[in-house]
């Protein structure tokens, strides 16, 4: 039998003005299991709290109902107070007599009647309160960063500089991501490699950072502070502990194949570093093209390697480790325009290239050593058409969103082309020019001063005739159909989520939006957190953005990790769901509805009627459950319940209101 204490607060005259506190106390005294009821002028004050503590002892109370201001105001205050007594802090209910009663009603009779109802509900619920306990979760102070582009590198460096060990997983052979492929960065036009490669070197040599290249995250379980992560490092066929990166193997390798780093515009060897400043600065063997690995004949690299570092029998390495926090920085890829734009030739014309291909063409360390030439015949193009919004703002064929960076890099490409080919002509087809950023609009205007002709309209068709690429457009500003005979066309294509986004998102319990970008926890106020505690987003995996924004978000994510790591232990939520083994039928409805992937189905063996039976039941992970209660409603056998808001408690509140 419970012994409930009810305290009704005057809140000065805030409550007492429209609620007859005395009458409420009198009614409270008549309610079942109420052992004590009293009023108080200011319950939240030290004296008020002291009075409650004394009443608890004096009347042997085991739970408390307080009629006062909103629980959003002082629930925590009163819980703290209870933690100084013998009563569990969760043996507490608060009736909101101020914000939702006295402040919104003028008629004292109505206000008092409502206050009585609210006290009744609270008493009815409180009668079924159970002691609840938080768990302390140890924090494993090691961070995992997935993705070694500029965002991942920045996050890794910041976390490492804060003193915590970081593992950085990169699926390509080298760090650097997309940024290191770029030639120059807008609007300052500093060399991309010159600012990106030092960061790569810093990451590579940082004592707190372990880089795993050619690696992917295969499995993740656990929760904040304790993620169990399985990482697969693909075979490199080279012993990195011996290799010095001298590059002799690469020069002697007889096999050439198109380089993905050069966007198919140049060749690389089968044993290769994707580019000169790669980190790690050691080569890998591309098993798909290596003669030795495909046909068993060759072995040049093994023969030339002065250190004997080649390992043709190398295999994938799978490791499992525990991390306290994860930063996801898997970046983006460009939309496969060829498959959706038949009207632009669908990829049949060699001289219709993507913006990233242009970056390689114009790059001094690229396949043409920075000479802007047509991929088809190596001739310098005398007229170039730049088409923006290819795949962006095109829900019918591509994506509905604006890719944010293309207006700027489109302007950059026009500027770079006119800089390298001063007698060339450059036409830029655009829908709108969007240049919000420091120095951005000035940069765009300068491109026009350089001589780029901006035409407002979407190109309808590009086709090749007599060696020229004919672009059909409309200059909507003058209302004329226009054609341009171009030597080369650069398509500024939409950013889309990386191939991995969907798989990784579902593995980590991060929701994806309609376009498969990973979703932040709140678009305004929690832009780097995800709905999974301890997992943060950095860079373009969360949505299209440019380099400064990616770097800023990466540092913010790193800060979140540092804040998490500043604690040795975390307190888990006490008001979480739990499943009754006796009732659960293992249907799994709760598993699919849980937004936090906190529920799993497990096989258990138990004794029923002195027989051993194995059943599937659901199990809630207390580290992941946030206490929303969605699972409880989905549970048809009624096995799942929410602590602190149990079915019985809510039903009793309903009854208290309706039946008395």
């Amino acid at each position, binding site marked *: 039998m419970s012994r409930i204490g009810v305290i009704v607060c005057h809140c000065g005259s805030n409550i007492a003005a429209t609620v007859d506190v005395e009458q409420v106390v009198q009614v409270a005294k008549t309610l079942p299991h109420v052992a004590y009821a009293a009023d108080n002028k200011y319950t939240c004050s030290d004296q008020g709290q002291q009075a409650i503590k004394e009443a608890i002892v004096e009347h042997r109370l085991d739970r408390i109902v307080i009629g006062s201001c909103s629980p959003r105001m002082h629930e925590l205050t009163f819980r703290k107070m209870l933690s100084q007594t013998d009563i569990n802090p969760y043996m507490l209910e608060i009736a909101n007599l101020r914000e*939702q009663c006295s402040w919104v009603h003028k008629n004292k009779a109505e*206000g008092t009647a409502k206050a009585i109802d609210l006290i009744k509900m609270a008493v009815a619920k409180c009668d079924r309160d159970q002691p609840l306990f938080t768990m302390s979760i140890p924090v494993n102070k090691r961070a995992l960063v997935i993705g070694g582009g500029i965002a991942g590198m920045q996050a890794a460096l910041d976390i490492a500089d804060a003193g915590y060990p970081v593992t950085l997983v990169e699926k390509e052979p080298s760090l650097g991501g997309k940024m290191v492929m770029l030639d120059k960065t807008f609007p300052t036009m500093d060399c991309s490699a010159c600012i990106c490669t030092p960061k790569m070197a810093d990451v590579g040599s940082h004592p707190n950072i372990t880089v795993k290249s050619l690696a992917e995250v295969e499995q993740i379980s656990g929760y904040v502070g304790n993620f169990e992560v399985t990482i697969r490092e693909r075979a490199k066929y080279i012993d990195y502990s011996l290799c010095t990166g001298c590059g002799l193997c690469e020069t002697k390798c007889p096999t050439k194949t198109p380089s993905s780093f050069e966007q198919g515009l140049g060749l690389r060897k089968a044993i290769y570093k994707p580019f000169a400043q790669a980190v790690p600065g050691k080569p890998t063997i591309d098993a798909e093209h290596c003669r030795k690995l495909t046909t068993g004949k060759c072995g040049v690299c093994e023969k030339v390697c002065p250190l004997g570092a080649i390992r043709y029998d190398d295999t994938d390495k799978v490791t499992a480790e525990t991390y306290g926090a994860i930063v996801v920085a898997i970046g983006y890829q460009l939309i496969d325009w060829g498959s959706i734009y038949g009207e632009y030739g669908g990829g049949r014309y060699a001289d219709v290239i993507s913006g990233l291909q242009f970056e390689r063409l114009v790059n001094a360390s690229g396949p043409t050593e920075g000479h802007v030439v047509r991929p088809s015949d190596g001739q310098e193009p005398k007229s170039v058409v730049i088409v923006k919004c290819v795949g962006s703002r095109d829900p019918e064929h591509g994506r509905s969103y604006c890719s944010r960076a293309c207006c700027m890099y489109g302007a950059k490409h026009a500027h770079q082309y006119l800089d390298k080919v001063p007698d060339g002509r450059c036409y830029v087809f655009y829908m709108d020019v969007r240049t919000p950023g420091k120095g951005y609009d000035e940069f765009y205007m300068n491109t026009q001063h350089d001589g780029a002709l901006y035409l407002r309209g979407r190109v309808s068709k590009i086709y090749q005739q007599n060696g020229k690429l004919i672009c059909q457009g409309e200059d909507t500003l003058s209302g004329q159909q226009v054609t341009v005979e171009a030597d080369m066309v650069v398509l500024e294509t939409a950013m889309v989520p990386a191939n991995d986004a969907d798989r990784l998102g579902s593995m980590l319990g991060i929701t994806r939006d309609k376009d498969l970008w990973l979703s932040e926890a709140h678009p305004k106020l929690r832009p780097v957190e995800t709905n999974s505690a301890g997992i943060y987003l950095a860079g373009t995996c969360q949505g299209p953005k440019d380099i400064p924004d990616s770097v800023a978000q990466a540092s913010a994510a790193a800060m979140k990790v540092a804040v998490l790591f500043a604690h040795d232990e975390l307190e888990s939520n006490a008001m979480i769901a739990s499943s009754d083994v006796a009732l659960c039928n293992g249907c799994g*409805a709760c598993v699919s509805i849980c937004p936090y992937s906190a529920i799993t189905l497990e096989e258990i063996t138990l004794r029923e009627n002195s027989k051993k039976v194995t059943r599937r039941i659901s199990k809630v992970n207390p580290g992941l459950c946030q206490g929303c209660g969605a699972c409880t409603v989905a549970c048809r056998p009624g096995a799942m319940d929410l602590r602190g808001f149990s079915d019985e408690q809510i*039903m009793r509140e309903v*009854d208290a209101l309706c039946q008395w």
Partner: protein
Amino acid sequence: MSVVETNVATTGAMATGANSPAAAESWQPSILAFACHWCTYSGADLAGLNRMEYPANVRLLRVPCSGRVNPQYVLSALGKGADGVLVCGCHPGDCHYVSGNYYAKRRLMAFKRLLEFTGLEPGRFQVRWISGSEAGKFRDTVTRVCEEVRALGPLTTDQRQALADPVLAGAAATTQAGEAQ
């Protein structure tokens, strides 16, 4: 569940005695509103902070999320004495728990059709999305629901009995799991 002995029936606004002819004149609708902690409940607090007045016939029941509201609660409330039930949560897409209000919407809309099928007037069970900053919307919604239910009059004993039908409870259970489809 025990029915509690009490002598204060007259002070409770939701006394079922309203059905008696003598009480008809002074009849006040009793409305139970389920409010999610993160949006609507804080919106209601903000209405208080701004001293916005609204009818005293509404009692808020705090739940963590509109997705926590089991259709059975609504059946129970209407069956046992409430004249109207309102469920409020965060706006679609703003759910503190990512998708709770989405599930609430799906299951409660199916449930609403079920209730209407039994002859319950649509005004008696409503679902609304009210954010923590929409104090005015909270006041307006509550006021309007109150007026609508007042216009409908008290829920009849027949209606309440129909709602207590176990077949209906079974059907409600299927809407409960509606999200699985």
